[in-house]
């Protein structure tokens, strides 16, 4: 639902209200401390890739979020909004514009953070802003689709359990034939294993040869391992859409399965973000 300038859309109001619940002191410090010195500008790869366009500057992007914080949560922005460039969001179109910035113009890489003399950490509150938009269903289409699959099916490519198991069994046959050993196994849900091996759904869906390659290594090493039939997706789109609940649920499923199988170690296959997200998105505080 969109709205006119004076009345705020339902989603815009939700974003503003939720911001108050999600802000931490670290974020508030970063939102308050920027002096607009521009020292971080050249550290952003978007700036380097788009010469002459100041809208890619980290501080400029940060200010798109900062203006909301100032307008609604910092009294300097409540009292003198124009003076400190505070502002609000009213329409869903404005939320879409914010989406293009927080998802499309920043990778949360933190190069600007380590180059800021003030210690302003844009990535932290950019992630929060992503989460706020995600909360009202505003995020890039690809991310939305994948996040939905992770919520509903349990893995980002919507692979059903029977397809997963069938693919592993197929790779097990390949392993037996390549190793010329009919007893070679890719164990599924074997309790008390030394290693629980979890993978990227891409491997099941598009190229299971990497599962076979890993199985060959485990075979050659004589490793006691297993692959879980559930909780096997180590990718995590909570990391990308800023949805802390999704992040916690996806990483939590992996650890839950390790606990259930009483595995000693968790090993994660190749992925650009899987290791980090599995390690940091789980909110259960369990030992690992």
């Amino acid at each position, binding site marked *: 639902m969109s709205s006119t300038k004076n009345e705020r859309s339902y989603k815009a109001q939700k974003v503003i209200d939720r911001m108050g619940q999600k802000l931490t002191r670290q974020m508030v410090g970063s939102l308050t401390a920027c*002096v607009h010195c521009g020292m971080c500008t050249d550290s952003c790869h978007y700036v380097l890739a788009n010469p002459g366009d100041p809208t890619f500057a980290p501080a400029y992007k940060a200010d798109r979020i900062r203006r909301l914080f100032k307008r609604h949560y910092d009294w300097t922005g409540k009292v003198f909004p124009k003076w400190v460039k505070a502002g609000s969001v009213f329409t869903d179109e404005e939320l879409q514009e914010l989406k293009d910035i927080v998802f499309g113009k920043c990778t949360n890489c933190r190069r600007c953070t380590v180059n800021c003399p003030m210690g302003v950490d844009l990535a932290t509150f950019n992630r929060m802003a992503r989460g706020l938009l995600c909360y009202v269903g505003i995020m890039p289409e690809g991310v939305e689709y994948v996040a939905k699959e992770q919520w509903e099916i349990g893995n980002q490519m919507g692979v059903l359990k029977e397809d997963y198991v069938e693919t592993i069994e197929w790779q097990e046959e390949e392993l037996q034939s390549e190793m010329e050993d009919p007893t070679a196994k890719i164990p599924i849900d074997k309790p008390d294993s030394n290693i629980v091996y979890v993978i990227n759904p891409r491997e099941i869906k598009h190229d299971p040869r990497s599962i076979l390659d890993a199985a060959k290594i485990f075979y050659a090493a004589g490793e006691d391992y297993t692959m879980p039939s559930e909780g096997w997706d180590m990718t995590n789109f909570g990391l990308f859409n800023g949805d802390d609940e999704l992040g916690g649920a996806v990483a939590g499923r992996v650890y839950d399965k390790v606990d259930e199988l009483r595995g000693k170690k968790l090993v994660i296959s190749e992925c650009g973000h899987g290791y980090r997200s599995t390690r940091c998105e789980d909110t259960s505080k369990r030992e690992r």
Partner: protein
Amino acid sequence: MSNLLHLSEHTLQEVALVLMATVYYLRIRWFLKWPLGKERQPATGLGDTNPKKGERYSLGLIAKPWAMESTRSKPFMYAQFVVFHLGVVASITLSFIIPYGPGLLTSSMFVSVIQVLVGAACIVGVMRIIRRISNPYIRAISSPDDHFSLILLTSWFAFAFLAAPNDISGGEGIMLTYFLLTAFFLMYVPFSKISHYLYYPFTRTYLGRHFGRRGVFPIRRKPAYQVSK
């Protein structure tokens, strides 16, 4: 000395200072009410650092221009930063010396030191104003407060330069303007971005703690295999 000048050197400054301290107190109280974000991931890294080391490193970065790429690659900007902030310290100090320790200003050497510091800061201020207006990146991120704060400080430096000899034989105009500007500055600071130094210890500590825990700070300058745990 006229009553007006006496008032602006003493009572006005004291009132301004109390106001500033009160607003700072309220700001810090407001800031500390926000809940501290919790670390979600277990400690990471090679084990050669920890949150405490990270904090110390992070807080010390300001004095290590070689440590950050942004300051390493722009030494001139870093030099400007140093000069500008030394000017602030000198000008504030001067506003206390004139009413409470004018004897110090009988030394022409001392006056020259103050004048060099605030004079250089004033030149940097002018350069910064030009940069803020002419550089499209800086212009795009600037608020009215950014422009005003800079102009305010630069003019304040200019008047500090002129007021440093503490000589009112030619009239009280300069001294009066300097103290009025100082009082306004003190009252305006807590509402403006000039108060960034209030948050600086917090932002740097939190960031250092976080990066120390993740094995990022202190940034390692040698390959991982040479790092002792």
